[in-house]
């Protein structure tokens, strides 16, 4: 790990699906231990950016560097090493639906550590407790509510203590109270464990709570970035409108 390199560097990223240009020359840096919120309307390329950061998608042009190492130039073994240090929370949680919540959270530990089962069980219960799901150890994912699924997905992403956490729409389809709980949990992670956060969201109040730096993406282009207050007073009319229309009161 290069101590001077940003945790995440996205350089001139472009991606096209069929005739649609989803990302167009997107660049930004995320410093270690900070939180970066990528804001924008639905379908503007936020989730696609996140999937490029973890190497689930290959860019048509540009590159992504994690701790100074280019994701696209890595072989599978190197990519796996990098991914072990990254947690990814999917928008719909993407829990493995044939195993229980406890087994979902234990899965990365069973695959990537040689811990005995009793130690794994302790760690899984600790992580589930952290997200308020300690009672759901034996529950199947299909029996969880939307908010619980999201928290279970967060627990699975956190169980290996990642240095970098990528979160896709933490508050999507959640009631305001649950969304606020998840935002507080993310904030606590950053402050207590020094986890670097990259959060994709369309929830401006949530981004204000979590984000050190906010960026707005529109039709695949990054049109502004800065602190929440800087964006609120941006010269760009769309950014100002977006921040004002979605403000919903500061938390």
């Amino acid at each position, binding site marked *: 790990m290069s101590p001077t390199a940003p945790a995440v560097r996205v350089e001139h990223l472009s991606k096209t699906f069929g005739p649609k240009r989803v990302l167009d020359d997107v660049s930004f840096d995320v410093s270690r231990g900070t939180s970066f919120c990528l804001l924008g309307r639905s379908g503007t390329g936020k989730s696609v950016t996140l*999937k490029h950061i*973890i*190497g*689930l998608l290959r860019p048509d042009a540009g590159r992504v560097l994690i701790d100074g190492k280019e994701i696209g130039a890595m072989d*599978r073994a190197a*990519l*796996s*090493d990098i*991914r*072990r240090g*990254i947690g*990814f929370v*999917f*928008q*719909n949680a*993407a*829990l*493995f*639906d044939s195993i229980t919540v406890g087994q979902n959270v234990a*899965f*990365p530990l069973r*695959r*990537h550590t040689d811990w005995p089962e009793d130690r794994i069980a302790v760690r899984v219960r600790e992580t589930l407790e952290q997200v308020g799901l300690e009672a759901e150890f034996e529950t199947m994912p299909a029996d969880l509510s939307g908010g619980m699924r999201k928290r279970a997905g967060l627990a*699975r992403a956190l169980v290996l203590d990642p240095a970098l956490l990528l979160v896709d729409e933490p508050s999507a389809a959640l009631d305001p109270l649950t969304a606020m709980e998840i935002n507080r949990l993310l904030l606590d992670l950053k402050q207590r464990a020094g986890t670097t956060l990259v959060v994709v969201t369309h929830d401006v109040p949530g981004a204000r709570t979590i984000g050190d730096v906010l960026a707005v993406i529109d039709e695949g282009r990054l049109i502004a970035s800065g602190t929440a207050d800087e964006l609120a007073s941006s010269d760009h009319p769309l950014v100002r409108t977006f921040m004002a229309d979605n403000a919903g009161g500061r938390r």
Partner: protein
Amino acid sequence: MARDTSGVVDSVGAGVGRALAWIGDVSCFGARALRDMFRRPFELDEIVRQVHEIGWRSVPLVAAAGLAVGIVLSMHTRDSLERFGAEAKIPAGLALALVRETGPLLTGLLVAGRVGAGIGAELGAMNATEQIDALEATAIDAFKYLAVTRIAACVIALPVLTIIVDFSGIFGGFLAEHAVSGIDFRLYFTRSFELMSFDDLLPATLKTAVFGLIIGTIASYLGFTTREGTEGVGRASTRSVVLASLSIILINVVLVKLIFVIFPSQ
């Protein structure tokens, strides 16, 4: 008129091109799976789990089907052979027909129906709900963990299931014969194997490993590449069954010819 003909030729040509491209993609998928089977990590736990799902759970289906086909084949064989006074050859004729062709093909088609649909739907649903991406994000090779293990399990399970079909078919033949002629169980089994050699049993049984490779590869490929959400899951499941069954029937022609070339005594 000439323009109409050229339009038909163009569209047939485009269809053939798409079919060849598809066959090429599936072949590359299968070749990659074969290569990865012998590379670390071997995912043995998952292969054992899949052999249980694909193999063990198919036993009731294939055993029942083998029994029924054995009974029916025995009735047909008796109908033909008793015209020549050759009833004593019914067990041997039935056993040869089962072991050399009916058993392997029946097993391939039954497993293509049961397992092909299951793998196509399961992987398609995992794809649609981002579970495959979640595996990758957890630093796990999803292709190896999901596709290679299922394909390996199909390759291992098919020959074993074929032997079960062969023997349940022979037992079905015995039941039918016993009902008609009252033949003794030991005598029926002795007669069943009096004309059979390992050259009859071994190549025909082992060729079903190729059927397993075809079923696992096509179903996994369709599951991995589905892009149309829930509708795509259904389509992947149906296409897995249809294409795997058709491929088995077609490849069987080549395999039978190959067996005759390698084992000319047949």
